């Protein structure tokens, strides 16, 4: 595969920066921009030359034009943080609150936040053990129906949830919600405790 006249001297393979002789990161020329380690980053052991978001970040890398940088990167961040505030009412509480659903990763995360908001316990547990919990978190979906929280996948829930209500168990029976593990008449089945 050698062209005539051009000796194929494959120089010794060095994993070093241009101009450097040692296979480590060396800032040989102040004008050259170098990569720097993320201090304390031991997650990726394959190579030391990872690009970082520190001020030593290489200019113009990755090569994405500035128009696309502004639109893509902000877009993703924007989408991820686009606000989804819904009202939350709790039976017995005098005031309603608002919570941003987009700030939470899942049901348990949301339950924890609600517990903090209303200074109460039991919402998180109610998701696992509906039958025995004091509180029943329900939500109104886009069709106007009141649904038990936790049945559908999280993404589907945050898309359709219009508002939340934390109901007392005693109210729930009258409301017509079927707790898990009950028969259709609303009687509790025997469940191993």
């Amino acid at each position, binding site marked *: 595969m050698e062209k005539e006249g051009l000796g194929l001297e494959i120089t010794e393979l060095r*994993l070093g920066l241009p101009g450097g002789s040692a296979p480590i990161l060396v800032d040989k020329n102040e*004008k050259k921009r170098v990569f720097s380690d993320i201090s304390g980053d031991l997650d990726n052991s394959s190579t030391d*030359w990872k690009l970082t978001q520190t001020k030593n970040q290489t*200019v113009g890398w990755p*090569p994405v034009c500035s128009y*696309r940088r502004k*639109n893509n990167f902000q877009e*993703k961040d924007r989408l991820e943080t686009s606000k989804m505030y819904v009202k939350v009412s709790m039976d017995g509480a005098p005031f309603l609150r608002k919570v941003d659903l987009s700030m939470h990763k899942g049901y348990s995360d949301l339950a924890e936040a609600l517990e903090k908001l209303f200074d109460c316990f039991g919402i998180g547990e109610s998701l696992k053990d509906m039958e025995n919990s004091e509180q029943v978190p329900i939500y109104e979906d886009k069709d106007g129906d009141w649904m038990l929280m936790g049945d559908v996948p999280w993404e589907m829930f945050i898309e359709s949830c219009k508002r939340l209500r934390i109901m007392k168990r005693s109210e729930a029976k009258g409301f017509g919600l079927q707790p898990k593990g009950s028969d259709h008449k609303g009687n509790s089945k025997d469940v191993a405790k």
Partner: protein
Amino acid sequence: MLTMMNYFPDEVLEHVFDFVTSHRDRNAVSLVCKLWYNVERFRRQQVFIGNCYAISPERLIARFPGVKALTLKGKPHFADFNLVPHDWGGYVQPWIEALARSRIGLEELRLKRMVVSDESLDVLSRSFTNFKSLVLVSCEGFTTDGLAAIAANCRFLRELDLQENEIEEKKNHWLCCFPDSCTSLVSLNFACLKEINLAALERLVARNPNLKGLKLNRAVPLEALQRILMRAPQLVDLGTGSFVLDRDPDDFETYRKLRATILKCRSIRNLSGFLEAAPRCLPAIYPICLNLSYAAGINGSELIKLIRLCGKLQRLWILDCIGDEGLEVVASTCKDLQELRVFPCHPVGAGHAAVTETGLVAISSGCPKLNSLLYYCQQMTNAALIAVAKNCPNFIRFTLCLDPINPDPVTMQPLDEGFGAIVRSSKRLQRLSLSGLFTERVFLYIGMYAEQLEMLSIAFAGESDKGMLYVLNGCKKLRKLEIRDSSFGDMALLRDVGKYETMRSLWMSSCDVTLGGCKTVAKKMPRLNVEIINENDRMKFAHEDNQKVEKMYLYRTLVGPREDAPEFVWTLEKLLFTPGGLLEDQ
């Protein structure tokens, strides 16, 4: 032989030449003999100038008095990645002024990476009565006042296409400046603007029944889109703006209307936009997503659902959060795919790998017609590239953006063999971008096999100057070479300076070329402009010949050093040959 050709009346030659449309063919025709040169030049209507500093407007006008459509490009490509300082140049003003003073009947102007001022747009709008088409790509320097002038004064405007420009938006409603008599629009793209006057837009669409292409911006909400589509069911290219609805129950009515309206738009062939999109609105576009080109705002499972319906997709631009699984869906659905661009979601490789070599291999095996690829990923293997090369021998463009100096993670080898396989199998490859870890071997392969290569981008190449020599020596059709952060130095630069006159330009930044080396090129080649950009060291640059230059850009030109260079750009010809110039000729 020549005497026989002279028996053809000029009219016959003209008629024949009219069938020759590509720039290169026309250029070739003009080189045959003086007669053909003269006949051809009076008939040439479309002129392409790849570097606005290679020639002057006066010479353009003198040679092609019949020019109607002009394309001009300004800044070097690496300006896209902030490697070229802001005031470097590329001004369109002198061109427009010269054309305006002449009797040229300009009808179409296409500019890329140029600095355009409001004044230029104003002069343009007033000087050419038949002006029909303005396309601005990656330009800057103007405001919506300039757009207002175009709207108001170009009575026969057919196309206004603004792609990825930086435009300062003023409080004026430039869209209102289109007079009521403007009914000739065929294509309008303002996706890069942030605001728009909705009422004016709807009225404009209503009175332009020939509108085929419309690309909206984020300020156009779903309700307005529905009304616009009602008035323009003939659209072929559609770029949506914002594709979300609020959580208002009434919006379901809007959504329903939109679905119904879209079903009436039977001509839509190309779809883009979706700068933000709510998943529950997307089913409305299922009937028309034939050629989804760019959907930064659609992600995850919604995007997959959409793609499963796009069996005829030819061009797809997406973000890497589609993941390898998403690419596998593309591979199994889009058998006609020709162009794929996968952009990064996050600014820097933020730990998680969104797409890997697996996705690329899947695409290559499912989409054998693929000829244009732009792929950002964090790792790549030789085996994957070899498989891709085997599956897809038709690449014209192959741009891979890997983390620099990353070897094949499986074998820890450089990616020479992988890229070598690509250039060997894709015989029509015209544009290549290298990244990752490679040695000079890859350049040997490129020099040997990439016979049609016109543009090569190299970043973070180590090793010796041999690599650059292999390329300069082997790639006979090379036009643009751009190199950053690589260890090529004077030896490579100076080996064959005549080569640079056969190319459009050479860019080298953060390499090992020295001031002395650049001066040598400048002295030997009077028809090259050798420009040094030294932003950081304006005062400290020691004028020592062995000092490395930060950025060098050289290009062939027929008009000598440019007069509009800023103070941090040193054109060596000027400095060397001007008496008392900054750099004494030693």
